[in-house]
């Protein structure tokens, strides 16, 4: 009996490890961003680009971050500037590391705001205060809740305003990080992660057994929802405009809808039904950009977070399996839970037309609340779903604070309490800025574009190049394999050295061309993106400028601290490992 109990406890602790690894990997993007993007592009093409991105950039950068972090941690460095300085032995590298402090700090400022939405929606569903008759009504409620109508309108402390939830979430994050990682994050992952997976499975079973909830609308079904999400070939009804160009009118899913559209199109002079194959989609750079961006955001690579956490590992801890386990847990929650819950539920109640073209927030906060209003026991499931999103966001937001804390401790030689207090002040000011300038969510959107997209690409590229070319791939793999029960396949040597940097460079150039300069095809007239027009086209947007100013201010402060700090003088300040 004694032996059986010991075995049981050992397995319990091992499962605890898995849950803790998974808990730190899962975030909001798994349940909201991924389904919307996959449905937009069609399962076949998107999943192919997604898995290629996972193989070519996700896993290599993830392993590189785990390995560099552990290596530098043995030499006394725990912040991104220190780690990159230690890896390359060059003083200039520490200035690139500034980006790895700025990214998690700035993203935290707006991520915590979104986290507060999730908590607010969960509480309002639990109180039975969420009742809508249309998606437009749900959208109007969302706009009022987050203050999208006007600057300052989000600052309010009624149950149907975001302010009170933001304060709660902000305090909760800092209490957890102030109590320390062992008590804070471990406690959070230990309870939040099992709860998240159980809630996810309950909601998944409920969604997959919905069938066609409204007998009068048989095409509003889970089957069509799954088809909208996963069918490799998209079928669209297009309309010819006055200029002769064809424009998409609606997306068609299900045999009856396609047949009806073909009958309506007739000879095809002004209307036509067109099939878009996955091969046609794969030629579009926007698809690769979207898939790669999803991999970055989802796996938290290029955020500077993994670098910091892995720097606390012991010399022979397993970085290869740690990275792979975290990645696989994240993929499980994203593809197997997120991919089967969100879009099928939305289509089952509202149909493809209401769901198509909705962005991440549109799907999560306009469409899904309406779905829960239509669903039997909807308030209960709505509460569970938004609680799930809140738990996923909480485990992510806590992890975003540690890189900033580690940097302040290291560079300023101050204690944890002082660094937590200092970071708390900076992020409170930043979050206050994002919440106050909530009109059209301009501040959030601008910060997300320049930091959550642009700087992540830059840091990921810098990291893989420093690992592959500065540190050396063979040396890096030998370092990664120490203490690991797995070997990284040799296939990844050329991938890390050539394919990954080139792939990132190609994606970056495409991003600049499409999302920044608005060049959608060769020879087409460029149309500057809104983010550039906000800054340079008259009349300039002051909130966009203030947001960029906030990034520059945080970056400037971190840069000055790195410049003045005595911590970054010797790349091996603890004598070559412990």
């Amino acid at each position, binding site marked *: 009996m004694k032996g059986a109990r010991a075995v049981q406890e050992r397995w319990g602790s091992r499962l605890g490890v898995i849950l803790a690894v998974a808990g730190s990997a899962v975030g909001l993007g798994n349940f909201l961003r991924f389904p919307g993007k996959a449905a937009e592009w069609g399962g076949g093409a998107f999943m192919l680009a997604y898995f290629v991105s996972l193989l070519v950039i996700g896993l290599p950068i993830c392993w590189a971050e785990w390995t560099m972090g552990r290596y530098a941690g043995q030499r006394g460095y725990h912040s991104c500037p220190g780690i990159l300085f230690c890896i390359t032995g060059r003083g200039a590298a520490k200035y690139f590391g500034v980006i790895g402090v700025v990214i998690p700090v700035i993203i935290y400022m707006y991520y915590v705001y979104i986290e507060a939405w999730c908590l607010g929606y969960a509480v309002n569903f639990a109180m039975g205060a969420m009742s809508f008759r249309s998606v437009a009504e749900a959208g109007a409620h969302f706009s009022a809740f987050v203050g999208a109508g006007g600057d300052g309108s989000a600052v309010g402390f009624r149950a149907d305003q975001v302010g009170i939830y933001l304060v709660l979430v902000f305090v909760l994050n800092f209490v957890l990080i102030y109590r320390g990682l062992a008590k804070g994050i*471990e406690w959070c992952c230990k309870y939040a992660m099992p709860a998240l997976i159980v809630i996810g499975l309950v909601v998944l079973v409920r969604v997959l057994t919905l069938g066609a909830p409204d007998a009068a609308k048989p095409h509003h079904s889970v089957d069509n929802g799954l088809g909208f999400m996963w069918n490799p070939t998209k079928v669209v009804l297009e309309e010819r405009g006055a200029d002769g160009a064809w424009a998409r009118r609606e997306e068609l899913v299900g045999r009856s809808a396609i047949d009806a559209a073909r009958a309506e199109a007739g000879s095809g002079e002004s209307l036509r039904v067109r099939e878009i194959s996955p091969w046609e989609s794969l030629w579009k750079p926007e698809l690769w950009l979207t898939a790669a961006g999803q991999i970055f955001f989802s796996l938290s690579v290029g955020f500077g977070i993994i670098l910091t956490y892995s720097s606390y590992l012991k010399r022979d*801890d397993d970085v290869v399996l740690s990275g792979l386990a975290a990645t*696989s847990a994240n993929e499980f929650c994203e593809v*197997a839970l997120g991919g089967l819950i969100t879009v099928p539920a939305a289509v089952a109640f509202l149909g493809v037309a209401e769901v198509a073209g909705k962005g991440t927030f549109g799907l999560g906060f306009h469409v899904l609340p309406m779905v829960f209003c239509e669903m039997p026991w909807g308030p209960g499931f709505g509460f569970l779903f938004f609680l799930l999103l809140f738990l996923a966001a909480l485990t992510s937001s806590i992890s975003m604070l540690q890189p900033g804390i580690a940097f302040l401790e290291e560079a300023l030689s101050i*204690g944890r309490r002082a660094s937590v207090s200092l970071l708390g002040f900076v992020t409170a000011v930043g979050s206050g800025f994002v919440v106050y300038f909530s009109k059209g969510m301009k501040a959030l959107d601008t910060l997300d574009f320049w930091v959550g997209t642009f700087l992540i690409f830059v840091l990921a590229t810098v990291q893989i190049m420093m690992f592959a070319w500065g540190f050396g791939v063979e040396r890096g793999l030998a370092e990664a394999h120490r203490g690991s029960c797995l070997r990284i396949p040799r296939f990844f040597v050329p991938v890390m050295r050539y394919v990954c940097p080139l792939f990132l460079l190609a994606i970056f150039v495409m991003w600049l061309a499409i999302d920044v300069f608005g060049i959608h095809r060769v020879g087409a007239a460029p149309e500057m993106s809104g983010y550039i027009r906000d800054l340079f086209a008259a009349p300039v947007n002051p909130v966009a400028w203030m947001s960029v100013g906030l990034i520059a201010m945080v970056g400037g402060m971190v840069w000055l601290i790195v410049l003045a700090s005595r911590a970054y003088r010797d790349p091996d300040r603890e004598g070559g490992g412990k």
Partner: protein
Amino acid sequence: MTAGGWVVLVASVGLVVALFAWCVWKVLTTPGESERVHGFEFETPDEKAEREAD
């Protein structure tokens, strides 16, 4: 959903479930592995020092 949709769904979900299950199996069955695999769950030296100073 079309047959192609089912293929994409089963292949995608099957791949991630298999990968996750394999990682769980590897951690659970490799001796000493649970002490060497980590997420963001462990106590950092700075926090430990702060706690010990209290």
